[in-house]
């Protein structure tokens, strides 16, 4: 990994980093990746992974929920006429 990889990841994750932190993170990643990399040596026989987990769905039927509209709308960082306001995209 190099500093450009860190910048690229930060861009993908939408996180602004200072120059100083980029360097610190690179150092951290080197040690963390060196640690987790040991799983590379693990020999796995040809197991068709039997993931015994599956998605649990519910019927797509509207249900009432007891949310307070004021509590949700009141927390919008920016709003207008009770609607969430976001910056211009186009």
């Amino acid at each position, binding site marked *: 990994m190099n500093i450009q990889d860190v910048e690229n990841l930060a861009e993908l*994750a939408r996180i602004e980093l200072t120059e100083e932190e980029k360097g610190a993170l690179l150092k*951290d990643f080197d040690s963390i990746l060196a640690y987790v990399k040991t799983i590379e040596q693990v020999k796995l026989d040809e*197991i068709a992974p039997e993931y015994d987990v599956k998605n649990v769905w519910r019927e797509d039927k509207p249900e009432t929920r007891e949310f307070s509209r004021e509590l949700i709308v009141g927390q919008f960082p920016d709003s207008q006429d009770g609607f969430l306001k976001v910056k211009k995209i186009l």
Partner: protein
Amino acid sequence: MDLKNLTIEKAHESLRKGEYACKELLEAYLGNIEKKNKELNAYLEVYKDVFEQAEAAQKKFADGTAEMLTGIPIAIKDNILFEGHTSSAGSKILENYTASYDAFVIKELKKAGAIIVGRTNMDEFAMGSSTQTSAYGVSRNPHDTSRVPGGSSGGSAIAVAADMSLVSLGTDTCGSVREPAAFCGLVGLKPTYGALSRNGIIAMGNSLDQVAPFGKNVRDVEIVFNFLSKYDKKDSTSIPDSLRNKLAPSAQSLKPTKIGVPWHLFEQGVDPEVMENFKNSMEKLKKSGYEILDIELPFSKYSLEAYYIIMPAEVSTNLARFDGIRYGYSNQAGNLLDVYKKSRGEGFGREARRRILLGTYVLSHGYYDAYYNKAIKIREKIKSEVVQAFESVDLIATPTVPVPPFKIGEKLDDPVAMYLCDIFSAPANLSGVPSIALPAGKNKENLPFSIQFMAPHFCEDALFNIGKKFEEIRRE
């Protein structure tokens, strides 16, 4: 009031007989909070409505609808939503967030009339093993205030250990309740995955997180667990009753006699004092008639490595929702992309940023197979070897944490050293089995030791059984 030796059952009995009122019990705990919280930083907030809660509880005693948890003061970790109250998950990005609904566990506690005293400090988004990464300052171990309480549910552990609540709730993704229970001399239970609803819990790693109780003794933890272990249709990973009945353990498995010890997992890296205490504890169990067997868990050797791939992957996905747009901390400068980047860059602390980026990396094209895919295959192997081990033993024992409570400031600059605190916690979270941390005496410096047991899925009762037995014999 002798809070040190107070249990849920004793408190219930006294409240029922009218020896004291709910309000008086609450005030005894509030008195301790007043005295100790400034130094220990267990609570981030004591709720303003505690006296109304106490009054409602008292009514239940008056009209005969009181149950075991009515009027019992309980502290909750800052990542459990309580409608109308702040829930910040120890993060700046949620400093101004007011929960818009109750978590399932809160709904249940409210119904029973438990008194939810306040929210407790935690590592930011439950990422840490020492409660030092919170945006709201470090918390301190009540046994030695120069040391960490463990984490991430450090505040909830301190609250119970320092008699600032009778019991408390944390969450355990990889030891976040068992490790602070060990460091603070408490009982901490990580329930079977899917036993308690995660609805209304601010998620870190969805496939690993469980709400988990702390108590001073096994019985208190058992009462809280039994009360909250229920199917909830709003959590798709909550186990339905039909499956719970099918998985219901046999009478034999609830009276464990055979304890497996995977000695090969801790040949190295365990503090000699911790090792000696563990061996002594096993010796005591042996003398009381338990059979101690050597078992092999070859893939579990890689459990922490697999965990540090799976968890950041889930973190990077989960924490994508905090974007400065709908709620929480927001920096409105510049264009939309700037809002995202600045809000997230300024709102998340260092460990959160580190894990989000790490998760983004292990999921990215080109690395996905080498890291994430490999890790989930290893996880499957760990799961099957743990389940298989339970064909020959009833319980698996290890030390809870390889080291005693460390000094505040230690390990902060060395993430891997910090991660290693949870090395014995990972197998239970990766395989979904329940696990309990039990106090096992103290060292020369008066710091607590702890041992940990794992049991098969939904065999919490086996853990309570051995836990109560160990409470009797550990002083011998």
